[in-house]
């Protein structure tokens, strides 16, 4: 029995349908990301789960109870907003205790729960501070504590990291994940940042234009993208133009070299052009065991990223991106150098 | 959500009724001069009154002079305080709030005591002197509004950078203010000017205590002697105020794009 069960959810604003019959179901304790570009409908879904938007049709069940038509304040959910949304007139302790106070918890118990929450987010002793005295990261941690203090049935996170600095973003997302695992609370996380979604989630719903493109664990989404949209939106992707040699045998010609690919589109005829795609990290400079295709090209550009060096390599008519690890003992390759690159034909994706 | 909207509309409707009914009632009253039928006789009577023309003209002139003096006093002060003497700002803010705290009636009492015909500066000793005093009083009255408008205007255009840019190109101080700063805050100044005008044009207390033939005292005189003309004059005054405020709104659209509307 699914804990969060969304069925045929549709939302129309005036003439435009922003969520088009979306269904998904998740188990208790899962961390779910809704990932997609802005305007894909992910935030609208979250706001419908929260109760701020009324679905045009469809239903939302949490823990076997239909909450589609409940008011937001009856749903017992917790939510963290993009811009913190801490109450500026209340200090940290009162912010965290707000939901408890509304629920009528006696002051003493509330005190204990607030202290427990402050310890959980690593801000013990901050209860008398006001929001303006805190950094963005601290404010967002308080917002998280405020959301989970009343022990909500589910936690909703609306791009909670996007207003923060890059470094804090990474450390806070790890912290959020640790707390979520610790409490075992079912969490729905909305983000447009694929790296964030990949690193934090149990499962990801990739959305585009109001539809689900793919639903799966992070490694499934990354390794086996179901659609071209998913493949390009999640992670970097190279495209190689190839010519079909024999559709039945799944052989193609890449830059004059024959290769057998895992699959070909049904429409591919002998002699027609196909686009093959592959991740930057499956390409290697020079030969490597298991790589059955070797191509030669010229380095067009070198980007030094620290532990990783990203090369852009011209291969005939194709421009490929390739990541290699930085080797402290040798200088990075230079622009204009001739290189050979190799890849395994089984890593080629046909979309 | 539905009920929320209902209460919003209800509140708005009640508020609107309170503000619109007196205007309609006044207008209706102003048309009743001729028995048994509506007419614009009251308006005709007002415009035919030579005292209307003279007192209104007097107030317009005083209003314009007030605006000019106000701008000359406020603009350079705000500019230099913002640019060079930020430590004076709290003091400026305090001064410009005073006219909102000290009633105009008290101030004019102070003027009459201080600047009477036997004092060092006998403003009230002559008609011209009293006119000058009246103008000074009006500048004071409008000070909070003029200051706020100009200060807002200067905040939005970052006068520090503009001034430095002009200095590097060799402009002198007068050129900077005249050619760079003033044109950029013109809209803000005009907003303050129209507000000043709206305040000055019907002002009664100070003008009547200084015995000047202004529009405000004229209105009170009409109020005690006539029945329908006051209503007509109220409508005329409302239209004048509306005109001044409407100008501020129109000007707001021409303000520098970064500016927060000052209306």
């Amino acid at each position, binding site marked *: 029995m699914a804990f969060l069960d969304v069925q045929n959810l549709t939302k129309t604003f005036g003439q435009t349908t922003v969520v088009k019959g979306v269904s998904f179901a998740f188990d208790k304790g899962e961390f779910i990301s809704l990932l997609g570009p802005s305007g894909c409908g992910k935030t609208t879904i979250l706001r419908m789960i929260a109760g701020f938007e009324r679905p045009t049709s469809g239903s939302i069940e949490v823990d076997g109870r239909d909450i589609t038509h409940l008011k*937001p304040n009856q749903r017992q959910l917790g*939510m963290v907003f993009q811009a913190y*949304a*801490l*109450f*500026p*007139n209340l200090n940290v302790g009162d912010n965290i205790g*707000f*939901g408890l106070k*509304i*629920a009528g918890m006696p002051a003493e118990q509330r005190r204990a729960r607030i202290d427990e929450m402050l310890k959980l987010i690593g801000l013990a002793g901050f209860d008398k501070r*006001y929001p*303006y005295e805190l950094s963005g990261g601290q404010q967002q941690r308080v917002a998280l504590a405020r*959301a989970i203090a*009343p022990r909500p049935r589910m936690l*909703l996170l609306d791009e909670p990291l996007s207003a923060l600095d890059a470094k804090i973003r990474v450390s806070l997302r790890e912290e959020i994940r640790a707390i979520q695992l610790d409490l075992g609370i079912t969490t729905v996380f909305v983000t447009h940042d694929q790296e964030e979604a990949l690193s934090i989630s149990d499962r990801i719903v990739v959305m585009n234009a109001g539809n689900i493109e793919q639903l799966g664990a992070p490694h499934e989404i990354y390794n086996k993208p179901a659609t071209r949209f998913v493949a390009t939106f999640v992670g970097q992707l190279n495209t190689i133009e190839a010519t079909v040699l024999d559709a039945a045998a799944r052989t193609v010609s890449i830059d004059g070299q024959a290769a057998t690919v895992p699959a070909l589109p049904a429409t591919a005829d002998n002699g027609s052009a196909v686009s093959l795609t592959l991740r930057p990290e499956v390409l290697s400079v020079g030969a490597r065991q298991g790589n059955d295709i070797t191509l030669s090209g010229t380095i067009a550009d070198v980007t030094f990223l620290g532990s990783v060096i990203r090369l852009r390599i011209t291969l005939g008519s194709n421009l490929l991106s390739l990541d290699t690890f930085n080797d402290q003992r040798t200088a990075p390759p230079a622009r204009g150098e001739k290189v050979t690159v190799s890849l395994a034909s089984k890593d080629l994706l046909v979309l | 959500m539905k009920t929320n*909207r209902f209460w*919003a*509309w209800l509140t*708005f409707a009640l*508020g609107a009724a309170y503000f619109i*009914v*007196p205007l309609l*009632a006044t207008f*209706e*009253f*102003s048309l009743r001069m001729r028995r048994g039928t509506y007419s614009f006789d009251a308006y005709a009577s007002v415009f035919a009154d030579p005292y209307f023309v003279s007192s209104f003209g007097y107030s317009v002139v005083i209003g314009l002079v007030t605006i000019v003096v106000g701008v*000359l*006093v*406020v603009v350079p*002060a705000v500019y230099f305080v913002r640019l060079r*003497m930020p430590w004076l700002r709290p003091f*400026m803010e305090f001064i410009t709030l*005073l006219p*909102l705290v*000290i*009633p105009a*009636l*008290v101030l004019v*009492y*102070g003027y009459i*005591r201080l600047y009477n015909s036997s004092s060092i500066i006998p403003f009230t000793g002559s008609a011209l002197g009293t006119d000058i005093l009246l103008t*000074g009083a009006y500048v*004071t009255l409008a000070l909070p509004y003029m200051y706020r408008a100009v200060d807002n205007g200067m905040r939005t255009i970052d006068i520090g950078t503009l001034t430095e840019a002009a200095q590097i190109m060799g402009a002198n101080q007068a050129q900077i203010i005249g050619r760079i700063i003033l044109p950029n805050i013109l809209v803000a100044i005009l907003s303050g000017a129209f*507000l000043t005008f709206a305040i000055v044009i*019907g002002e009664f*207390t100070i003008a009547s*205590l200084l015995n000047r033939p202004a529009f*405000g005292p004229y*209105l*009170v005189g009409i109020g*005690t002697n006539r029945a329908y003309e006051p*209503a007509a*004059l*109220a409508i005329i005054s*409302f239209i004048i*105020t509306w005109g001044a*405020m*409407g100008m501020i*709104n129109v000007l707001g659209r021409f303000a520098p794009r970064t500016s927060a509307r000052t209306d």
Partner: protein
Amino acid sequence: MTNTASPRRIPWDALAVAPFIIFAVMFLFLPTLGIIGAAFTDRAGSFTFDNIFGLFTDQILAAYWISIRISGASAFFGALIGLAIVLAIIRGRLPAPLRSAVMTFSGVASNFAGVPLAFAFIATLGRLGLVTIVLKFLGLDIYRSGFNLLSFWGLTLTYLYFQIPLMMLTIAPAVDGLKKEWNEAAQMLGASQFQFWRYVGLPILWPSFLGTLSLLFANAFGAIATAWALTGSNLNIVTVLLYNQIRGDALQNPGLGAALALGMIVITSLANVIYLVVAARAERWMK
């Protein structure tokens, strides 16, 4: 040009600020100090408290009291009603064009004070006013049931015509500053709309509300033109009393007149001091 040799540059700063300072001294400080001085001076020119003691007569105290009541009531109701209308327009999501029209109208109405306002209310709620006549036609004779435009409530009702818009103009930016997310966060934590306003919305608006309240109070307290045009010299409010004193020494004691004016300054200052103290406590959470 040897700038280094002759450091006599024109002191623009001082020249530019001087008129402002001179103006403030001539038209604000000196007159006020003059009044304060006169309030403590007897006819012979020596220091005295007699003028201050002289204020404690029934007539003068009554005048102060009526003024305070009218200013307090019109400020209080003006602030409440003004806030309600602003909330209805901004939070009730009424159409945007309506909002800008209302704000423009507020700019006009807040400046539509003084004599013309009195005329308008005479034409509306005077004995021959349209509303009076219509209500009488409908069977409600407001004057027979005790209403009088020249009374406490009549004057308060009239003052509201500029007090409400003034409140709306000053409080609108604060209401705009209330973030939608605060309301949503409160709802997610189980709060009703009432609870949101009780614990979050109104406390955030409170300092601005108080500030405007004291402004409205001073605004009404110093007003005279409307009252004068409505009632002539009949109404015993402190501004009318002082006006008569300035005009013709009605109290037959210039020192007492100065004391009366000083009392007005003290009361409006007090309103501001109370605001500053309360706001400082309510604003702990502000930067």
